[in-house]
């Protein structure tokens, strides 16, 4: 039985005590797509994943996974999903192979099939050499790969990845991205949460921006970028005096960042505007010049009034 929607969330509310975490979420993920839930820490991303993966119950609203209601038919849902939480969900005392075997046993794969699947995943996730070492000796990137491999043993139709690359070095991130893409090529639906805009931008077919328990915008990366009109032309200047002078000659449209010694103006994409800008700055000490096309960071700022990094940096520093 195929459903056109792998995930269908309507009017979802969830509160922890008096503290509302999700305040009326509507969201869908078409089968075979990658949907990214983008938002800062504390936005409610993990809560949403936990509700959709049957870990916690919604206060109100409905969540259907491949046609099954998470509250009424949790077992049917669990048969079709795979979940990789934010923190590594493996047995650190076990080796990589033993962890995979545990999963194969728990999903009742026949012995031979289980062994074949394990070999295939160890190979694909580049864990063959480390397969017989305890997982406690693995690096962060290896743990994450094993984690995702464990999720995939049962060939789930929908996988949840809660911040799959948080804390990983750039190379491991890229590896995890490639692994996610491979899954999608196999027809798996992926629902991932992230606080990284580039991650959502690279992987997702559709992005939902979550802030304060509400979806504040959704669409493709291109559609979201369209919400922020145009780009910006930015010049960096040699001194404070030059900044004042440049701001004066560029008029009321100019945005000044005195600390960074930069002045920027909205950009419509025409070459003429670049020429005229530089002409108007003739005589001021312009050190560098940049053209910014809007990225998701701009979208996030425009939508929520704060950037994605504001909320999570202190915590990142603690790690």
């Amino acid at each position, binding site marked *: 039985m195929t459903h056109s929607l792998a995930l269908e969330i309507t009017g979802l509310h969830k509160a922890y005590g008096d503290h509302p975490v999700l305040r009326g979420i509507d969201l869908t993920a078409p089968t075979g797509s990658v949907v990214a839930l983008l938002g800062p820490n504390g936005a409610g991303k993990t809560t949403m994943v936990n509700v959709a993966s049957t870990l*916690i119950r919604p206060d109100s609203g409905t969540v259907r996974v491949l046609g099954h209601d998470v509250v009424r038919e949790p077992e049917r849902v669990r048969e079709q999903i*795979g979940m990789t939480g934010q923190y590594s969900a493996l*047995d650190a005392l*076990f080796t990589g192979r*033993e962890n995979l075997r545990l999963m194969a046993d*728990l999903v009742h794969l026949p012995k031979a099939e289980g062994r074949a699947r394990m070999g295939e995943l160890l190979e694909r996730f580049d864990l063959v050499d480390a397969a017989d070492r305890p997982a406690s000796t693995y690096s962060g990137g290896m743990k994450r790969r094993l984690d995702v491999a464990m*999720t995939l043993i049962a060939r789930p139709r929908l996988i949840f990845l809660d911040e799959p690359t948080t804390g990983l070095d750039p190379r491991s991130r890229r590896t995890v991205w490639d692994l996610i893409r491979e899954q999608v090529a196999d027809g798996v639906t992926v629902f991932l949460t992230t606080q990284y805009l580039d991650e959502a931008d690279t992987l997702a077919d559709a992005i939902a921006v979550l802030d304060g328990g509400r979806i504040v915008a959704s669409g493709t990366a291109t559609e979201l970028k369209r919400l922020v009109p145009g780009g910006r032309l930015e010049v960096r200047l040699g001194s404070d005096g030059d900044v004042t002078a440049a701001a004066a000659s560029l008029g009321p449209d100019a945005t000044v960042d005195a600390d960074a010694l930069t002045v920027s103006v909205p950009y419509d994409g025409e070459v003429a505007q670049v020429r005229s800008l530089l002409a108007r700055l003739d005589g001021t000490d312009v050190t560098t010049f940049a053209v910014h096309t809007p990225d998701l960071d701009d979208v996030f700022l425009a939508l929520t009034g704060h950037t994605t990094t504001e909320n999570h940096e202190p915590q990142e520093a603690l790690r």
Partner: protein
Amino acid sequence: MSTTTASTSRATSGSSLALAVRDSVTMSRRSIHRLIRYPALTVTVLGMPLIFLLLFVFVFGETMGAGIGGAGGGRAEYLHYVVPGVLVMALAGVATSTAISVAMDMTEGIIARFKTMPVARVSVLTGHVVGAVLQSVFVFVTILALAVLLGYRTDVTATGVVTVTVLVLATSLALTWLSVLLGIRAKTVETASNTPMILVLLPFLSSGFVPTESLPIGLAWFAEHQPFTPLMEALRSGLNGTAAGSDLWVALGWCLVAGLASYVGAKRAYDRDPTTS
């Protein structure tokens, strides 16, 4: 509508029992595997009763023995008296370590993974219980063997062996479910390691180390009515090859009540939405 529901639920309950057994076997293998992979835990659990055994026999033994066996009593008499007490304390010690390993499991992501898989829910807990009961039997046999090395001798009878086996299994099952409950409900691993300490202390306030008659009146009343005393006395009778009488039934009754209540509580605590607590 109602007939459909009934037949579906029957169909799934039949297969869900098979599923629960199968998953419990897998989870039990996991627990046993963990115990083997991490022997330090079992060594710690063996260490405490061993130290108490040596302490009671070689440090307090001579004096305590005189108190128990009358004028002729000494170290050998006290060894004979104290072994059941140390054995029960050893079982309680295993319960403490079970609570810790359950709490550790709960704080790690792997439980969330199990909960989102089509795995029989109770299997995670039964896995821990099977592992802990095996650990209990291992610790019990080892401490008993060490006591024999120190000169502990009894009249072994068939009834005695059966009594002791039943008591060890019933006690460790009850204590383990209780510690699983404490382990799940503990907010942190530290709490999980502190709360079950009471299980290790309670045997001291029983007939395990001194006869209850020698205690001050209030304490004697408590000692005579707390579950560890009938357990201790039944175990003593079993080991000595004498009839355990009503102590056995009272002890098994306590095990049944505590075990069942803990099982129900643990299952409920495990199933509960973590956000509503």
